[in-house]
């Protein structure tokens, strides 16, 4: 039975940024942590444990997958496992983007009507 991406919405801000971070390719945990911080303009500052709780949930939901780093050595001192967006994860991210766009569009229209 196909999974409906809309059933995952709305995404929390950390979840959205984690998925967005992985949209450009596979990353290990620390790279996600830094990317989320950068993408959110340092507003979302995840701790290690919060990141991995979210990662565990996203893995359970099949939105991301855990990969072995054998073919892509992360370098010394970096985690050996990396994470990548699944096809479902990409569809969920796109659906969230459309939802947010719709909200912004409505807000813009209303604010224009009110002459703000």
């Amino acid at each position, binding site marked *: 039975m196909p999974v409906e991406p809309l059933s995952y919405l709305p995404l929390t801000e950390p979840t959205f940024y984690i998925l967005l971070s992985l949209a450009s390719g596979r990353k290990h945990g620390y790279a996600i942590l830094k990317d989320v911080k950068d993408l959110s303009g340092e507003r979302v500052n995840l701790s*290690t*444990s919060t990141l991995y*709780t979210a990662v565990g949930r996203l893995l359970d939901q099949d939105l991301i997958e855990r990969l072995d780093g054998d073919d892509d050595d992360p370098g010394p001192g970096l*985690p050996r496992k990396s994470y990548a967006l699944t096809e479902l994860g990409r569809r969920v991210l796109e659906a969230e983007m459309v939802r947010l766009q719709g909200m912004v569009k409505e807000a813009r229209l209303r604010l224009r009507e009110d002459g703000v």
Partner: protein
Amino acid sequence: MKSDLQFLHRFYSLLLNLYPGTYREEYGEELQTVFILSIDDATKTGKFETAKVVLGELISLPMAVFFEHLRERRKAKMIKNFNSRFDFAPGSRKEVLAAVAPFLLFGAIPILVGLSGRLNTRPYFLEELLSMFMLASMISLLTVGFFRSIPRWFMPYLGLPLPILSLYIFNGLVDEWDGYSLPDLSSRFLRGFVQDGLLWGPLIPLILLLVVFSVIIPRFRPFYRQLRNDWTLLSFILYGAAPVMALVWFEGYINYGPFVVLMFLILAAGGWLYLRNDVPWRKFLILIGGMTLSMLTAAVGQAVLYESSQYNSRRPYTNLPWWNTVDQTVIAWMWLVLIMFLPLVINLLPRPRSSLQAGEPVSG
């Protein structure tokens, strides 16, 4: 500063023990690495940033630990519930019921069809309802069986689709083989034997394919070890083919309900005796006995129905004596019994030493 950092690393490593064991095994190293990298990065900015990161970690950790324990418990409970629901003890009433369910369900068809004919409500309502129920039950039990790595009670379910597949292969071969004709044999019985060999012969490669799959696919290797430990399980799979074959034998007959019900009751009793026995040869003979008795019932049923003209007259052999109408069943019985001996050959194959030592229990 360096000793402070080392203390923090060690302290964090100790805190990781608060996580559930399996989670720690899976993610512990990663958590530790990411924490070290975060702290190292923060120290480059200054003490305040380091303190902020450490504080953030300390505040979020208890909640994360709580969530992981909760998730672990939920997963363990789900697995336990699922396993305990279908983990039937060998020879237990539940195992026997699960194994003989296909025979009982198929046996119930003629009763319910007859009942639906008497109830003058909505045509075919009961048949539709029964078909849906049977389909849903079969699909659920098939799913459960595969998830439980093919337990002992699941063997008749594996056998159910085999005659259908065999018929498909036979039809495919006939279509492919242009100008298909039987050998010019004078004996009608011998010609029937060759024809039925082509019809039910594909059961042999199908069974062999099943064994090959169980060797190749790691998930089903326990099933292969079960087969090596108890060769009669393959015969039990073929025993499960009988219900579908029986419906083929009674094609063209009318009022065959009582005979089919009796056949399936015999098959179910055979399945029950098989699961309650431990001696391989006795188990094998029970299966052969059950199959023979049920097919004898089919042959008697065909003869009785034919003699009392409860037979579709469009069929070609309406002018033939009754014994010519039951020979198909007798020949099919011969083939099926022959194929049921196939597991014996597999049993004669050399066993790898490790599989003998493993002593995998044959259980459901």
